[in-house]
């Protein structure tokens, strides 16, 4: 078994709990002192950080939602002054109320350790060549992987996504051994290989680490068979580092959460109460080591469950099931989370009205596509064909610009879809 940090990853349960208690107490003291939102919410429930002596006390604390992050835009949730922040990421979640996430030098260092653990756990070593084909932009994914791979001493090729034929060329010529990308992107590369008559067996590629969108076991089988690699899952969200939050080891039996850095809970998304062990619910994370942007009981919106028993790999940290669904309307596509209300805002701005709309997500063989169906109404009805076409074009360019990739826009007649269902995800992930 490859273990990047044996001491931390294979710690016994008692030591993990002690370390979590210590770090949780320290984190609560810090956020109480430095983050006015937490100071206020703790006071509202008459909680002083020094009162915390067990996890039961901890469960009294309110959850932190994405809404809270938006309300405290830009730097309200920071626990350190800006000059100590060395990196800022703004995931493209919202148009008018973005979210800013900061990292101190120590945060980046911890993050590198976490992604190094992830990469080591699937067999990446210092002799490997890691091609990162995730979109380099405002989301954290590729940056975290890069830090970890460099920490291990592997050779990193930051490729971003797109440019399939040059990606394939580099995959072959640079003797890439590890591909980090979205799973559908790997399948797209396979198609390019077929077009260029390159046999995947002749490549050095042996490991694939995939994330940025939900993917099923059947896609895993498909990728492993076509590319002759072992494919593992990684999970992360920008608010909490990004990759390194949870990952599969080479056993592929659920995703490990590094418990020395995070405290994970599973709650019932409706009541907010913890669910019994093993039952599905929403993943809630508390950061234990983050300096710049600590989060207390942050609701991820992702549905999963704790897996019982120990992993054969020997790591003692808990495991969660693969994350395939969310508990809200938000969906993950192309590495970013898409919030229907935000699409609605753009729609309203362009059209000057509030039309009904539906987001239709489909998975073609090797890529996901998003279509925005807009219900036509009197407000949106133009007597000239030219104006009508212009409207669709404006909408298309505004949405594509916001998301950073191409979106389809279709005007449909009333009754073509159920307006109560803003998102239809036909990707058939399960």
């Amino acid at each position, binding site marked *: 078994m490859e273990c990047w940090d044996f001491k931390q990853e294979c710690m016994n349960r008692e030591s993990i709990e002690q370390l979590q208690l210590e770090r949780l107490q*320290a984190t609560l003291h810090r956020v109480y002192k430095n983050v006015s939102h937490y100071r206020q919410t703790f006071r509202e429930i008459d909680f002083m950080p*020094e009162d915390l*002596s067990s996890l039961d006390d901890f469960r009294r604390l309110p959850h932190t939602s994405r809404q809270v992050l938006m309300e405290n835009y830009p730097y309200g949730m920071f626990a350190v002054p800006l000059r100590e922040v060395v990196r800022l990421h703004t995931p493209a979640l919202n148009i008018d109320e973005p979210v800013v996430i900061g990292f101190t030098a120590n945060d980046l260092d911890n993050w590198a350790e976490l992604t190094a653990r992830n990469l080591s756990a699937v067999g990446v070593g210092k002799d490997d060549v890691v091609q990162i084909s995730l979109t380099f932009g405002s989301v954290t994914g590729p940056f975290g992987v890069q830090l970890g791979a460099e920490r291990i001493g592997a050779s990193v090729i930051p490729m971003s996504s797109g440019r399939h034929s040059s990606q394939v060329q580099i995959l072959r010529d640079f003797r890439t051994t590890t591909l980090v990308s979205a799973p559908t992107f790997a399948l797209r590369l396979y198609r390019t290989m077929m077009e260029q008559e390159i046999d995947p067996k002749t490549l050095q590629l042996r490991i694939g680490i995939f994330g940025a969108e939900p993917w099923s076991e059947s896609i895993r089988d498909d990728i492993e068979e076509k590319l002759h690699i072992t494919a593992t899952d990684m999970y992360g969200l920008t608010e909490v580092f990004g990759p390194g939050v949870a990952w599969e080891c080479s056993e592929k039996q659920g995703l490990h959460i590094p418990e020395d850095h995070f405290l994970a809970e599973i709650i019932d998304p409706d009541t907010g109460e913890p669910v019994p062990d093993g039952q599905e619910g929403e993943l809630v994370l508390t950061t234990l080591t983050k300096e710049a942007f600590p989060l207390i009981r942050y609701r991820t919106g992702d549905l999963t469950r704790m897996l019982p028993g120990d992993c054969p790999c020997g790591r003692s940290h808990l495991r969660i099931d693969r994350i395939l669904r969310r508990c809200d309307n938000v969906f993950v596509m192309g590495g970013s989370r898409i919030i229907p209300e935000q699409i609605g805002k753009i729609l309203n701005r362009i059209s000057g009205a509030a039309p009904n709309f539906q987001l239709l997500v489909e998975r073609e063989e090797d890529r996901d596509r998003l279509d925005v169906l807009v219900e036509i109404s009197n407000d949106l009805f133009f007597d000239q064909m030219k104006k009508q076409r212009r409207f669709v074009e404006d909408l298309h360019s505004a949405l594509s610009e916001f998301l950073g990739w191409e979106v389809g826009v279709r005007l449909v007649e009333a009754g073509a879809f159920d307006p109560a269902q803003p998102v239809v995800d036909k990707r058939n992930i399960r």
Partner: protein
Amino acid sequence: MLKLVNVNSRYGLIHVLKNVSMHVSAGEIVTLIGANGAGKSTALRAISGLQPVHEGKIFFSDKEITNAPAEKLVRQGIAQVPEGRQIFWPMTVMDNLEVGGVVTYSLHGKKGLYDAIEGMFQLFPILKERQNQYAGTLSGGEQQMLAIAMALINRPRFLLLDEPSMGLAPLIVKEIFSVIARLREEEGLTVLLVEQNANAALKVADRGYVMETGKIVFEDTASNLMRNQEVRRAYLGKDKREIWE
């Protein structure tokens, strides 16, 4: 090896330790840093049984030692070097070491005691030169070495050091810390070091805790703490903060 879980302690009405949790693994050098009056020495005294623990538990080698009397802890292998070089001034260096080695004497007899004293002379050669001198006439650094030798003479597994650098020249501090690092390397000694001299302490330690008004506000590796701006500002002599800096 040592574990504190939600330890609370009060001086009368003053709540000094507020749910303090920390741990020291075998073979580790851990430092507890913080400003004057933060509660560092109280935490150390609570561990060594000199200060009552009102709530919470302390474990040593998986056995609970909360509020155990200090003399029992010495026999379990815990030794404390108190703040301010508490040695017997009107006695010679040799006499001091003999007093310090009372546990060794009771276990291994006279020969055992003098072998142990010889060991201390090897560790701190200057003490051998000064062995017949009154302890009160030693220099500050020599007194601190004697205080440490008095704790080490019973070959403890776990050493609690309270402000060993106080009032000493930087060069002497360096020498004392290098002895501590050597003992860890050679004999696997585990050390909990309370220091106001955060810079020197973090250089020798593996991990550190930062204490503020009776609460632990940071736990991290020593190298990360040294890089942490808040710690640098508060304890390593940097300036104040503004959110929009």
